[in-house]
Each structure stands twice: as C-alpha cells, then as structure tokens.
C-alpha cells in the first residue's frame, strides 16, 4: 500500500514535460498541468473568478476562456490540461468580447455600490470590469435586490454582490472540512446559504470572507470601517497559538497612534499561505480594549495602585530590586517570563535575571515539556519537522492533542496534505477528534496509555501498528500528553527506527521561544545546563546552581524567603491557581497589557506593548522562527525589551553589557562607509545586511540581541537554513533543537506536574483571550447555535 501510493505520488510529480504555445510563446510544463497554472507561472495572467488553486475545479464563471487551436469553441483555461503541441491564444477581440459578456451577465443584478463596498479597491470583479469595460448593459429590467444577512458576528452576506463563484462553499467544505455553506435555488435566484438557514454553525474562521473575490461576504470586524488603500499593511506573526501564522494587519493612523483594522493573509506568504483561524483574523481587538494599561501604576502608602510616570515607576522598581539583591542576595528574587514575548525579550530577561539580579530563579508558565524534548533529541540534529514539512510529508502519525481546536494551522496543514498529496494520516488518541475524518487509520488509546505507545507500535500486532511501521518516512506529532520520561521514550523509539522526525505541541505564540531562550531555573538558552562547566562564560557573575521553579518561588514567598517577584507577561495567579496570600510580603513587579489577577497584586505595574506593537523574532511549536513586525502603536506602553533595558539602566547597569549597540562591542554604521551613496537608505540597508552588518544604534533595538542569540544558542546558529536574509524578508526559518548540548542531566526541576497546558480552543487564548471581544462574541454565538441545534434534535 505504502509503495503503491508512494509511486503514484512520484509518478504524478514526474509527469513528462510537454511543450505548447501560448500567445506565440513556447512554454514547457509537466503534462496534465492546468493551462491556467502553466500560464500564471510563465507570467501570463488569465482572469478567473471561480478557479482557486488547491480547491476542486468548478468551471462556473467562464472568465478564463481562451481559444485553443483546432477546437471549435472557447475553452476554459481552468480545466484544460496541457499536452504536447497544443496552441492557445489568451487575449483577442473574440476573447475580450466573451469575457465582457460574462461580466455583463454578472452585473445584471449586481448593485453599483463600489463606493461603499468593503471590497472596492481590491475587488476582482471591479478589476475585470475596468479591464474589459462592461460599463453599459443591454438589460433594462430592475435589478433584483435582497437585503443583506448577518449569519454570525463574523460573517455577513450581501446576495446582490455575489457572483456565485463557489469559492466560499469550497474553502469551507474542502479546506476547513466544516461544510457549513451551500448554494440554494437556481440560476439568478441562487443564494449562498448557511447551514442553519439564517445562521452559521461553524468554526468562524472567516476563510470564506477572505476568499470571496467580491464584497458579498464581509467581516463583522472590518465592514464599512475603511477602504483598503487607506491602510498600511504590516506582515507579522499571530500572537495566539503555538502555530505561528503569518498575519497581515491593516493599520490606519488614529488619534491614538496606529490602530489595527483588519487581519488577513491575502499575500499568501508564510507557512499558513492564506489560512488564518478566527483568532488570527479577528483576535487583535485586545490592543484597544478600554481596560488596556497605558500608564505605569505604583502602589501608594494607602495600599492602592495609582498612575505614575515611567521615571517614577522605574525608579521605585529599580531601587527596590537593587536593595533586595544587595541586602538579601539574588536568591531572594524570582523572575517569571512570558509565553508571548519575543525571543530577544526572553533572552534579555534571563540575562537580566542571571547577570543583573544574580539569580537562576527564573521560569515561565510551561505548557509543554520542551526541555525533555531537547534532552531527548540532544546530539541528533535533523530530527524535528517544520510545519512546512508536515504539509508535504507522505505519512504522519498524530498522537494525542486536538489540532483542530488547539492548533488550527497544524490541522489545516494536515488536511491539505491529505487532500492534495494523499498523505497517510494515522491517529492515536484517547478520544475521537475531528481529524479522524482524514485519517487512514485510527487507534484508540486509554487515557493513561500513551506511555506504552512505542511498545504497542513495535509489537506490530494490530493493523494500525503494521501500517505505521511499514511507512518509509514518518513524522510523529505528539501532544502534551507526553511529559518528561515519556518524551524520552517516544523520541528514543523514533531515533532507533531512524526514519522518524518529530514535532511536539505547545500552547502559545512563543512558548517554544521561552523554553529555547532559557526561561528555566536549571537551563540556560539553548537548554545548556547552568551547572555545565564553562557554560555562557561571558556572562558576568552567572550563578552556577539551580534556581527555583515557578511553584517553588511561590512556596519560598509564602515562607518569607522571596523578597521580590518580577513577572513579565504572565498571570500565574489565575492560570496556575496559586494563592495570592503567598505574595503578601513579597515585592511584586509586573509588566503586562492588562491589570491581570497577578498584576493586581503588584507594587509596580509597567504597561507593556503587545506582540503587534513591537518587533522581534518568535518561534512556533515546530521550531520555525519568524520575524514579528511592529504594526500598531499605542501611547503610553513600551515593549518589554525597552522596559527591561530601562530598568537595568535605572539599577545602574551599563546597558551595553546587556545589549550590544553602537560603538563598543558592535559597530553601528549609519552609512559613513558608503561615501557618496550614503543617503540611499534602502540600498544601504541591503548593503549592510549583505555584509553581515546592521545599524544597531539604540539599546532598544531588540534585534541587536539576535546576533548574540545566534552566537550563543546552538539551535539558532547561522546556517544555510537559518538565514537572516530570509528571516528578515518575512520567511520562516527552522531552528535546530538537536543542536542542544549532548549531555543534559535529568534534574528534579523538571517533572510532569510543572506542565500546565491551557487547552485553548478556537475562541480562547489564556488571559489575553478575555480581552478579545470579537472572539468572545463568536464563542457566545457558537454556544447559542449549538443549544438551538441540540434543542431541535
């Protein structure tokens, strides 16, 4: 079976090349390629409404008609497969007339509301109309009007604008495997219909809105807010789950700074191509939530938090931290880092903790056991799978987890791979999951039975294990059901078999980065043990004994052993249900976006920028590193990086020892080496990058630390694949977990109970999710329709 399908795929890929002529040009493509694709590849654009790469063929719109030699009628380029010797014309008077006629029909009932339509300016129908000029019509009949409908808080439908291309129904069915949209009635009376008659019961991903070539499907979050050309578009990385979708944020200047109006990924770059789930698409409204902190808060003598200036707040925090460090030693200070801040910020935080505060008491809210994963893979590079590789692997074994809800992009990659490449998916899980529908075989596992899985597979007793063992090359994706020793065993099994690569699922946008950057009491960045002789020798005063884990810090606080707790972008009080009383006698400093349960206990609260308001790199669950770019702007808040640098400065530290910038450790070059051409900023930056230089003139330029990360963190070392140019161009580059040091001792600081996955679903995102009003509305909508469906049954 394996080989049969394998050969099929291979032979499909290796169809012999054929040569054919398009508009007088000789083109070559593998036989069977769709003409429209072959043309697009050669830079010949054929208009198309219904054709969409990766979806089934519809041939409904007739825009792509071309003239094929010796064929009596015009042919649709979206369904014509190229063969040797064919000849085509793609633009002629005859073709233009046919396309114009098609548009005229489409416009028969189409309203002329481009000036108010959301799609105006980026509408495919509008573009085609300009090109073929069907500005007048032979129709004199009144246009048929229908009122717009709201199907959910996210999805609105305007029938008069719909051109019945079926893109939405196909993306929802084939792409999302939700099948919530259909088409009712016939010809001019046809309408797109949601599954509950007038409401949608679905995953609310908004893919249908995004893919609609016109303004028929519009988004509750964006409709009538602006015009596409009034926005700047910034590509960055989604701040929610651990998959790390690239998201293009539409930004408009506002009285406040720059506000985010829209999220999509229409440029189709990035791992996710055009995929985004509801969180990536609609979950950006937390940035202007009224509860957002925009001023530092300091607890006054009456015991209440009151607004303060940055100078004052930083001075208080710095003085107190210094005092505690100097009088009680660094061991009396604890530091908790974040799952959502950038790699540079996480790296800086641990460096600050270790070299300025002098403590290894640093941890984060661990959502999965990356430390165990790194230990298991140590010395075995090339054994992890990137998310792109998962999208084209011939076979995948998914153990545990619930990708559809917790890792929507991963689920999308797997579904797409199964649909388009006939990948074989095997699922072992203790409960049924939605991806079972794509699986070639499933195996139910008793809830506690994951640890025996390797043994079960090796036994080759069941059809399931036989099929899995017969795979020539396999990617094994496993969830947080595996922790510490279980991870070792599973990975050891895979390493022994040799043909297996792994991916391990964690929760948030930079949970992996937090682990990689050493937010551990016993591990430095790159999982280097703090006890390893000579580790990070350039760090001054690096304490070489283990620090305290997060729960141990709270214990120490309760026993009066912790003078200060410094929390960056984390909410352990609510998340780990820790007793606030423990912190009664501890100085608490919190950097966050909101006054969380943890921030509410603090003595000093510093308002931080979100991932959408700063730049830096983040690493997804699969080790893909991407560049997050500053999109929005809010007065009052500062990136965590800047806050840390300022805090260190206020403590009297020479910040150059923390962040290399300007003259000194690294040379800043503003163009003086470019002589006469120094003024050309763009070319200049290209030149700098080509020469391995970057202007690092500010201690707040977080990328100044990327050099140091690449130098000291083995998995992030510069290499052919970890290419800075590519990273800065907006691509995902793989880090290498197997480069972590060969010997990582098992430490008591790691145990299964230190891991607390959040199991966020499609509309939740830990503490941050509470402030995403759009997501809350979607969740409520889904609850209401689910109740209605249940009541009807």
């Amino acid at each position, binding site marked *: 079976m394996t080989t049969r399908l394998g050969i099929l795929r291979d032979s499909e890929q290796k169809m012999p090349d054929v040569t054919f002529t398009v508009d007088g040009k000789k083109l070559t493509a593998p036989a069977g390629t769709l003409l429209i694709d072959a043309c697009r590849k050669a830079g010949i654009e054929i208009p198309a409404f219904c054709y969409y790469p990766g979806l089934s063929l519809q041939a409904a719109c007739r825009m792509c008609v071309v003239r094929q030699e010796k064929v009596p009628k015009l042919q649709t380029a979206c369904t014509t497969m190229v063969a040797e010797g064919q000849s085509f014309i793609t633009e002629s008077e005859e073709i233009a007339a046919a396309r114009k006629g098609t548009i005229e029909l489409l416009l028969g009932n189409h309203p002329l509301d481009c000036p108010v339509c959301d799609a105006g300016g980026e509408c495919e129908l509008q573009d085609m109309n300009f090109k073929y000029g069907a500005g007048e019509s032979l129709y004199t009949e009144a246009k048929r009007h229908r009122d717009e409908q709201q199907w959910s808080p996210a999805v609105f439908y305007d029938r008069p604008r719909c051109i019945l291309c079926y893109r939405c129904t196909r993306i929802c069915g084939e792409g999302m495997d939700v*099948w*919530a*949209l*259909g*088409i*009712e*009635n*016939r010809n001019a009376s046809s309408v797109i*219909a*949601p*599954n509950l008659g007038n409401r949608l019961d679905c995953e609310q991903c908004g893919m249908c809105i995004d893919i609609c070539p016109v303004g028929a499907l519009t988004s509750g979050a964006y409709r009538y807010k602006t015009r596409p050309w009034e926005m700047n578009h910034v590509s960055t990385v989604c701040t929610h789950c651990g998959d790390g979708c690239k998201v293009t944020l539409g930004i408009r200047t506002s009285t406040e700074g720059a506000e985010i109006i829209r999220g999509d990924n229409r440029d189709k770059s990035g791992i996710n191509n055009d995929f985004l789930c509801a969180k990536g698409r609609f979950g950006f409204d937390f940035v202007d939530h009224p509860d957002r902190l925009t001023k530092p808060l300091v607890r006054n003598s009456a015991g209440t938090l009151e607004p303060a200036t940055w100078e004052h707040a930083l001075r208080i925090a710095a003085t107190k931290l210094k005092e505690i460090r100097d009088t009680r030693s660094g061991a009396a200070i604890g530091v908790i880092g974040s799952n959502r801040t950038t790699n540079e910020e996480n790296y800086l935080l641990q460096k600050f903790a270790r070299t300025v505060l002098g403590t290894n008491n640093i941890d984060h809210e661990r959502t999965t056991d990356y430390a165990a994963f790194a230990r298991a893979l140590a010395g075995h590079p090339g054994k992890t799978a990137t998310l792109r590789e998962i999208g084209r692997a011939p076979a995948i074994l998914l153990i545990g987890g619930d990708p559809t809800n917790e890792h929507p992009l991963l689920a999308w990659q797997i579904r797409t791979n199964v649909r388009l490449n006939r990948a074989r998916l095997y699922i072992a899980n203790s409960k049924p999951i939605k991806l079972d529908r794509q699986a070639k075989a499933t195996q139910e596992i008793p809830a506690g039975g994951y640890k025996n899985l390797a043994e079960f597979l090796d036994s080759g007793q069941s059809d399931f294990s036989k099929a899995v063992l017969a795979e020539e090359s396999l990617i094994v994706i496993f969830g947080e059901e595996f922790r510490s020793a279980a991870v070792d065993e599973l990975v050891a099994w895979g390493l022994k078999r040799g043909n297996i690569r792994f991916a391990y699922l964690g929760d948030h946008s930079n949970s992996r980065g937090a682990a990689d950057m050493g937010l551990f009491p016993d591990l430095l960045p790159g999982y280097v043990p703090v006890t390893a002789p000579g580790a990070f020798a350039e760090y001054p005063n690096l304490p070489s004994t283990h620090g305290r884990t997060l729960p141990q810090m709270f214990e120490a606080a309760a026993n009066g052993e912790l003078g200060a707790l410094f929390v960056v972008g984390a909410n352990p009080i609510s998340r780990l249900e820790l007793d606030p009383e423990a912190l009664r006698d501890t100085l608490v400093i919190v950097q966050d976006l909101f006054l969380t349960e943890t921030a509410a206990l603090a003595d000093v609260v510093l308002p931080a920028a979100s991932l959408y308001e700063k730049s830096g790199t983040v690493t997804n669950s699969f080790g893909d590193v991407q560049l997050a770019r500053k999109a929005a702007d809010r007065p009052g808040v500062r990136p965590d990086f800047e806050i840390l640098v300022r805090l260190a400065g206020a403590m009297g530290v020479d910040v150059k020892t923390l962040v290399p910038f300007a003259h000194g450790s690294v040379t800043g070059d503003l163009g003086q080496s470019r002589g006469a051409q120094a003024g050309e900023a763009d070319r200049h930056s290209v030149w700098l990058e080509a020469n391995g230089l970057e202007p690092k003139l500010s201690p707040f330029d977080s990328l100044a630390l990327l050099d140091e990360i690449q130098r000291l963190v083995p998995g992030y070392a510069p290499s052919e694949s970890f290419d800075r140019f590519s990273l800065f161009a907006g691509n995902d580059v793989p880090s290498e977990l197997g480069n972590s040091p060969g010997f990582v001792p098992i430490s008591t600081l790691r145990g299964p109970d230190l891991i607390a996955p959040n199991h966020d679903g499609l509309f939740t995102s830990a503490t941050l999710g509470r402030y995403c009003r759009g997501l809350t509305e979607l969740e409520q909508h889904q609850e209401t329709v689910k109740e209605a469906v249940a009541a009807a049954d």
Partner: protein
Amino acid sequence: MKPGVASIFSPTLAARFDVLVEKYPVKRSALIPMLLYAQDEAGYLSEAVIAEIARRLSLTELEVRNVASYYSMLRFKPAGRYNIQVCTNICCMLKGAYDVLDRFREELHIDPNGTTPDGLFSLEEVECIGACCWGPAIQVNYDFHDEIKPDHVPGIVGGYRGKAQAEGKK
C-alpha cells in the same frame, strides 16, 4: 438508517428507502428519488423530512436543501391535496392558458401558490409540462388534462371534489 431511530415515513416507504439507499455505488445518488417519494407521501419537504433523508444518506441537511431547492417541483410548504398546475408557457399561453388560469382562480377563490381553506386544492402556474401539442394543458398531481377550455374548469374541480368525498367515505 440506524436501527432504533423512528422513521416519520410509512413502513412501506421506509422499507423502500432502505432498499434505495443501497442501490447506487454512492449513497447520495438516491437523494432525488427519495425527495420525490417523500413529497408524495408527506405532501411537502418539511424540516423533519429533510432531516431524515439527510440522516439516511449521511449528508448534511444543508446539502439536502441545496439539491431540493434547485427543483421547482419540490415544495417546502404544504400544498392542497390536489395541486393544480396550469402551464402558461408559450404554446399553452397562445391557446388561452391565462383564461384557464383565471377560471381556476374564480372557481377556487385562490391565487396561484394559494391553497383553499379546506386544504383540498392548491393552484400553481408552471412552465412547459411537455403537452404543447394539446395545449392548454394542466397537471393535477400526476394526472394530465389537455385541450382545456375555461368552461371545463368547474367539471374538473367538481370531479376531484367528488373523488375526495368518495375516498373520505371509504
């Protein structure tokens, strides 16, 4: 259909569906005949009918509605016991179909797409029913009547009324 789930159809029709579902290489091929038979028995495609057909064919209700709504002979609202369909397409129209239609209106006191209060008759204006040579033509449920003059209308209506009474007495 899953055993234990009660069918809303008569035992005969349910049994017929059980067979029909197995008859084609793909289950969904049975959809259109099932919709027609179900409408004949239930009078129209109610929510319950759609739900059961979807269940029997492992389709979503949305898919069933998508197909059903394509065909004008499938109804989502109840019709009269005798559904009178008057062709007003070109041949019949030239031969006086609108006079026939008007006569039905007067006789039944309803407009097209209406149903008489006793639920006995409903009236519909339809496109060509394939009896062009003998127009004007009408179809009452599955019966054809052709070369109709307005004066025939009371007789036709009376005939069905009598039929209903006779069946009612039995």
